[in-house]
């Protein structure tokens, strides 16, 4: 899932200066699962904003709403009746959701309440780690299901660098050396022959370097 982290409260209040009526719009997708932008977080942030503004003698009216997903046109239609009557939308979705809202509602400012941080998963409740960098050319077949692009600090493709020490990365002893993990797992799977295959220089055009990406399912186009 896409992981997001809430922006610092001061940054959010600065964005909302001068606005008297807003909607705080949650997203029922990834950010609900990672506990940063769902129904509960909408209620928490709205409470905080109302309190801060009341305290400053400059009250703000907030509509609290969460839609199924903000990265889907059919769901953001649900706020069609609300948006014309407010000063701004504070979106608690990832960057994709914020932009879908901004493109759909052209006359109303849409602000992000989160920093979209990475694609990953939860190793336990409330603890999220990065696993994929969406490079567009998956190498997990060769690397025993452990991604060297996302999890090696240098994104090396053919083995560890000299900074790998006792299974840890030189950037931080708390960070696993991805290549140590890969080799350990290849050995346990008896697949070390795959380590012998040289992975060619990466084509970063499939990553963001080739410009904004898209994926089209032809059979769904009408």
């Amino acid at each position: 899932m896409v992981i997001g982290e809430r922006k610092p409260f001061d940054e959010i209040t600065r964005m909302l200066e001068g606005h008297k009526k807003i909607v705080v719009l949650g997203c029922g997708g990834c950010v609900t699962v990672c506990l940063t932008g769902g129904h509960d977080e909408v209620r928490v942030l709205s409470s905080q904003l109302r309190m801060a503004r009341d305290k400053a003698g400059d009250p703000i009216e907030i509509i609290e709403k969460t839609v199924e997903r903000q990265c889907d046109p059919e769901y953001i239609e649900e706020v069609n009746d609300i948006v014309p009557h407010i000063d701004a939308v504070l979106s608690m979705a990832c960057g994709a959701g914020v932009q879908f809202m901004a493109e759909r509602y052209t006359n109303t400012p849409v602000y992000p309440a989160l920093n979209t941080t990475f694609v990953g998963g939860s190793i336990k409740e409330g603890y999220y780690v990065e696993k994929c960098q969406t490079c567009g050319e998956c190498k997990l077949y060769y690397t025993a299901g452990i991604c060297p692009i996302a999890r090696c600090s240098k994104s090396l493709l053919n083995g560890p660098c000299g900074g790998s020490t006792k299974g840890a990365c030189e950037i931080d002893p708390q960070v696993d050396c991805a290549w140590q993990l890969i080799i350990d797992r290849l050995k346990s799977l008896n697949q070390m022959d795959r380590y012998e295959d040289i992975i060619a220089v990466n084509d970063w055009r499939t990553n963001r370097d080739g410009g904004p990406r898209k994926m089209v399912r032809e059979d769904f186009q009408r």
Partner: protein
Amino acid sequence: MAEFEPIIVAFCCHYCAYGAADLAGSMRLEYPTNIRIIRLPCTGKVTPVFLLRAFEKGADGVYVAGCLEGDCHFIQGNLVAKPRVNYTKKLIQEVGLEPERLEMFNMSAAMGPRFAEVAREFTERIKVLGPSPLNKKYGHASNRAA
């Protein structure tokens, strides 16, 4: 202005603090009338939203009273509540309220005197801190708006 009498909301677990409050009453123990008790099936029911909404509506102080650690009727509800209370302290601090306005206490249903003591001590603490800026009667925000 009349002497400040804080409004304090106490989220009390049915199996301990609520029973302790009952016992305090049966024992004819005095404790301040500032406490408004909300009974919960377990403090594990508490979320930051509950606590923030209480402050938003003008509570000067809020506390959560759950079972002694290790004695939760639902095994670990009180251990779930504790970090949530600590997290909410940070949330109210961001808004500009003192984190001391929020606290978690642990007690058993047999601790009537302790319930009264907590009520007295917490009320005193809030009196020293003064009214919440969001208190409609005494708060600074409403005074400015008036």
